[in-house]
């Protein structure tokens, strides 16, 4: 099989779809990388659930203000036009449909748009945070993920096997191999790595990939 995209490259690809002036929430961890790859000339406004709009990059080490953190509890900085608000107002933004895009990680995504990204099952400590709120309300809910698990098993499935985060909520998946839309309860292939055949991609995908139009080459810079 072909070389897959790195996490940075997946984040880069997701960033290309964020329009100028978009209000965006990036999930904790991997999705936070998307902010680094905003195309030049476009200005997205990043929202964090804990009550900041228009935060910027991390400050230099040693200059952190621990009252100025994002939902991942990492220190951030402010950009001009930032604002602070309490948690109920913050989730009014989320639930009320005011965010243009939410980009989240995933354990599993199903062709019906279901997402599982908060619990790997009954063992351990359950923790949900803002994920169940974020999957509802944002105008577009996208997932960035490796195409398969560490064991090589598909993460794009007919139905999720893990506890759900949300029902029918995901509209686009950016993976290490492809860009897949969810339309009418089916996976529709939009882009794939040029070195990868459709059969090869289908073999590592747990539900049928429809080809409903031209499939573009997924071309991403070295990062």
């Amino acid at each position, binding site marked *: 099989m072909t070389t897959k995209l790195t996490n940075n490259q997946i984040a880069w690809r997701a960033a290309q779809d964020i329009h*100028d*002036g978009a*209000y965006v929430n990036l999930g904790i961890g991997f999705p936070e990388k998307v902010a680094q790859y905003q195309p030049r000339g476009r*200005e997205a*406004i990043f*929202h964090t659930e804990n009550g*900041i*709009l*228009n935060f910027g990059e991390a400050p230099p080490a040693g200059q952190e203000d621990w009252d100025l953190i994002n939902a991942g509890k990492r220190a951030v900085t*402010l950009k*001009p*036009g*930032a*604002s*602070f*608000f309490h948690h*109920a*107002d913050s*989730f*009014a*933004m*989320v*639930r*009320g*449909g*005011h*965010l243009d895009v939410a980009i989240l990680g995933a354990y599993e995504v199903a062709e019906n748009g279901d997402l599982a990204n908060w619990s790997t099952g009954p063992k351990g400590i359950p923790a949900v945070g803002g994920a169940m709120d974020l999957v*509802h*309300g944002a105008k577009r809910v996208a997932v960035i993920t490796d195409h398969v698990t560490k064991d090589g098993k598909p993460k794009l499935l007919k139905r999720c096997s893990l506890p759900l985060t949300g029902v029918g909520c995901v509209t686009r998946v950016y993976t290490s191999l492809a860009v897949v839309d969810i339309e009418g309860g089916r996976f529709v292939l939009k882009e794939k790595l040029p070195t990868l055949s459709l059969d090869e991609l289908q073999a590592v995908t747990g539900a049928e990939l429809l080809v409903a139009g031209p499939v573009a080459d997924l071309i991403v810079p070295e990062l």
Partner: protein
Amino acid sequence: MDKSVADLATAVAGIEDGMTVMIGGFGGAGAPIELIHALIDRYRASGHPKDLTIVNNNAGNGHVGLAALIETGMVRKLICSFPRSADPVVFTDLYLAGKIELELVPQGTLAERIRAGGAGIPAFYTPSSYGTDLAKGKPVAEFDGRSYVQERWLKADVALVKAETADTHGNLTFRAAARNFNPLMCMASKEAVVQATRIVPAGVIDPENVVTPGIFVQKVVEVAHPQQEEDLNRANAVYPGAV
């Protein structure tokens, strides 16, 4: 990002026939007089927009602002809590003649329904109006031994809002009790159109003091010397006319 628009006509250009329009203000405080008058100008020039549903606490006073909007004949229905004010003859005459619909909502329920619309809460329960005529036909439920009425969210296509300072991102501050419904209406509308006494660059308003974050605002227009409905009415002003 710059949400400012050049003039009032551009600011109200998105309002179409049959839309629901929330208008901020409680009495004259926070009433976006200039935006309302720009909408009246458009209707008088083009015959549109008409058949509007207006959400406001009151029904206007005298012959300016909301009262003038109603008088012009653009409004099909009013959703409000207190249409009986000092001089609401315009609304009163039309209502008694059966020419305008009224949905009467307790003031706190009106505020909460608008907030719910902005916050993605389709319904909630409130003790207000339980057992009264205004609860007729609404679901009721008991929680912890007390009875409550179920109320639905209220959303709008457009909100017309008056703010004190806006920045180019649409962050807003208000002035005194002119705040009232304005922040909520920004949340609950697809397009919040704001007239501000001044528009400043992003970064000028202290992030701690932003009352309405820009995510809830789509357009801002500067009206440096806004008229106050109370002053206009004390001068017996009529719009359009000698305003």
